[in-house]
């Protein structure tokens, strides 16, 4: 009897001592495809090792579906422990309203300024000298993924750039392959347009339009070329009736489609399907025309609470995400590039190495989501989606509406 009592007492004491340190944190994110889920599990593992508990709150759909849910929960007074958002202007107003936890103390203690590369990613998390989010990876949308199986079927060599790719399209059609896989969601068509903007239009045009909001640049002849290329893409994508980006990637993996313009997160899907870069698929950053990538990415924000225990746990999670080993494990699974310049990525595959090389050379651009407000970005998405799905809209028409949006951008 006495033994049982001591046992009970000691387990109770043990339970108490751990619970003083262990806190449940709900984490919301929209990483639900195979590769993404595997990557996010790495974060959960690292956080749980510290004795805390990661409560996964994945929201299926895409960022467009998840963001409203996340934001309305924060505004509505039911904040989660931590949440994924794309850093930049999406959370700007939430930070301004004082709804996000200030991470400046741990950022200074751990010297984030010195390890985060490019440092612009940390700047996107900073408002008035205070750090409000943890950047976790670098994603670049400017890639095209090509299926070797599809090109074998068509009997043409795998193209090395956009113009070769366009030239090879008729052969793919003859072989019964859809040249371009494209999901119907509007952010995907917008991504394709932005990618063409860099590849066909060039860096200067990209920054003039998106960063400087120069309406004249948006109406220029160079921009018309981009719209022409986008119209070509519209034809190439005829017959690709899929919704989600990973379904489109799957068309490339199975050889039903020749290629897909998609960010480097597509790589996680190839990895889950056990495909080897360079053998089963080829990736071309900047569509093989312009070796440059925009460095957007994901970041984690921590809504402010009054509970000091939760705040402490939030800070523990923040520092676990930026740790060297976690960064490597996470980014290898995710297919994205780590935000630290000082980690060893010898395990990285062919495509990631291409990305790292471009990053090291400093050929980087700010991402659209960093510089455009959600309002402007949403309008551009609507326009691109409408244009891409309605062949009655001419290039001139779409361009003039694009100029209008850029003119009124804020």
């Amino acid at each position, binding site marked *: 009897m006495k033994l049982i009592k001591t046992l009970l007492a000691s387990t109770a004491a043990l339970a108490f001592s751990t619970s003083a340190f262990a806190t449940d944190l709900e984490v919301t994110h929209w990483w639900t495809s195979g590769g993404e889920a595997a990557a996010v599990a790495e974060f959960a593992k690292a956080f749980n090792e510290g004795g805390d508990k990661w409560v996964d709150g994945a929201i299926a759909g895409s960022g467009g579906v998840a963001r409203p849910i996340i934001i309305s929960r924060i505004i509505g007074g039911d904040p989660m422990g931590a949440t994924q958002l794309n850093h930049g202007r999406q959370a700007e107003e939430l930070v301004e309203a004082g709804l996000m936890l200030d991470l400046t103390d741990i950022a200074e203690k751990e010297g984030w300024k010195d390890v985060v590369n490019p440092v612009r990613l940390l700047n996107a998390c900073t408002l008035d000298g205070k750090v409000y989010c943890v950047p976790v990876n670098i994603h670049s949308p400017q890639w095209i993924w090509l299926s070797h199986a599809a090109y074998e079927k068509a009997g043409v060599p795998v193209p090395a750039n956009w113009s070769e790719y366009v030239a090879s399209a008729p052969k793919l059609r003859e072989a019964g392959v859809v040249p371009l896989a494209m999901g*119907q*969601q509007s952010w995907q068509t917008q991504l394709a347009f932005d990618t063409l903007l860099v590849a066909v239009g060039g860096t200067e045009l990209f920054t003039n339009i998106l960063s400087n909001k120069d309406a004249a640049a948006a109406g220029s002849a160079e921009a018309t070329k981009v719209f022409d290329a986008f119209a070509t893409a519209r034809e190439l994508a005829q017959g690709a*009736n899929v919704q989600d980006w990973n379904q489109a990637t799957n068309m490339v993996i199975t050889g039903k489609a020749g290629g897909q313009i998609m960010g480097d997160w597509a790589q996680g899907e190839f990895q889950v399907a056990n495909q080897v870069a360079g053998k089963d698929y080829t990736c071309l950053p900047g569509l093989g025309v312009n070796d440059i990538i925009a460095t957007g990415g994901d970041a984690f924000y921590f809504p402010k609470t009054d509970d000091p225990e939760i705040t402490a746990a939030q800070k523990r999670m923040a520092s676990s995400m930026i740790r060297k080993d976690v960064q490597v494990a996470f980014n290898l699974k995710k297919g994205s590039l780590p935000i630290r310049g000082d980690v060893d990525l010898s395990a990285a595959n062919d495509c990631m190495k291409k990305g790292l090389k471009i990053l090291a050379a400093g050929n980087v651009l700010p991402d659209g989501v960093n510089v455009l407000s959600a309002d402007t970005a949403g309008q551009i998405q609507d326009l691109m989606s409408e244009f891409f799905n309605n062949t009655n809209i001419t290039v001139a028409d779409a361009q003039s509406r694009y100029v209008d949006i850029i003119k009124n951008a804020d």
Partner: protein
Amino acid sequence: MVQNQRPVQLFRNMSAKIAAIPMVLTAMVIFVGCSAWTIFHSFTKSKLLPTTKWVGLDQYERLWSQNRWLISIENLAIYGIFSLVFSLLIGFMLAALLDQKIRFENTFRTIFLYPFALSFIVTGLVWQWVLNPEFGIQKIVRDMGFETFTFDPLYNQEIVIYGVLFAGLWQGTGLIMCLMLAGLRGIDEDIWKAARVDGIPMWKTYLLIVIPMMRPVFITTLVIIAAGIVKVYDLVVAQTNGGPGIASEVPAKYVYDYMFRNQNLGQGFAASTMMLLTVLVVLIPWAYLEFGGKKKHV
């Protein structure tokens, strides 16, 4: 017993009035109060969070210059008119057929009403699959040997809204049929007998006697259908998500997208105010005719 003075009107049926207070308060605060708040903020520059920075009619000017809003309105008009006409027509026809004292009436009624038990989300997904060219109707007909048969409404700009309409009708007509059936059962048998004695053909009895007698049922039905039309949102989200492109957008989705995706509350509020205005434009003349005009007859 002589009453010297009339009881004060305010205190008649006291308990009933007290019981109604919570609902009156709810209506005032939630409906009127929140509507007023929304309308006020539609004149401001509210982004993610509401502010009181006044911009006048800017939000409305922007709203009416948006292609997407115009397409949404057009879609709502098409969806509204057709769903009103067809659900009444089909609902009444089914009810009239069921009313012929047929066998297995219960079974048929259950079958027709069943889709109504499904939410719009499920309905939308089911019809998305049925209408998908890769494995829906088109595939089945092609497999039967008609190789060139094409039927892909959800991937065709021009007719996508009819695909949505079809799913909406499939889901909603069962309920309309039940309401109509209840109305038909409320008609006295003697009326039918009298009509038969007078030798009036059946279709004429329906059209000139029964339907006018069912006026209250029709009005209830009309309100239910109309409310469903204005707020159509989930069906579109599940079935097409506004696509292809923006060809099947509806006003409610515009409101949601601007409030939450684009983080522009002002614009979303302006759109929802326009929706409220549309409803009022329809509702006020109708309420006037229905309730204001009636007193003269009685």
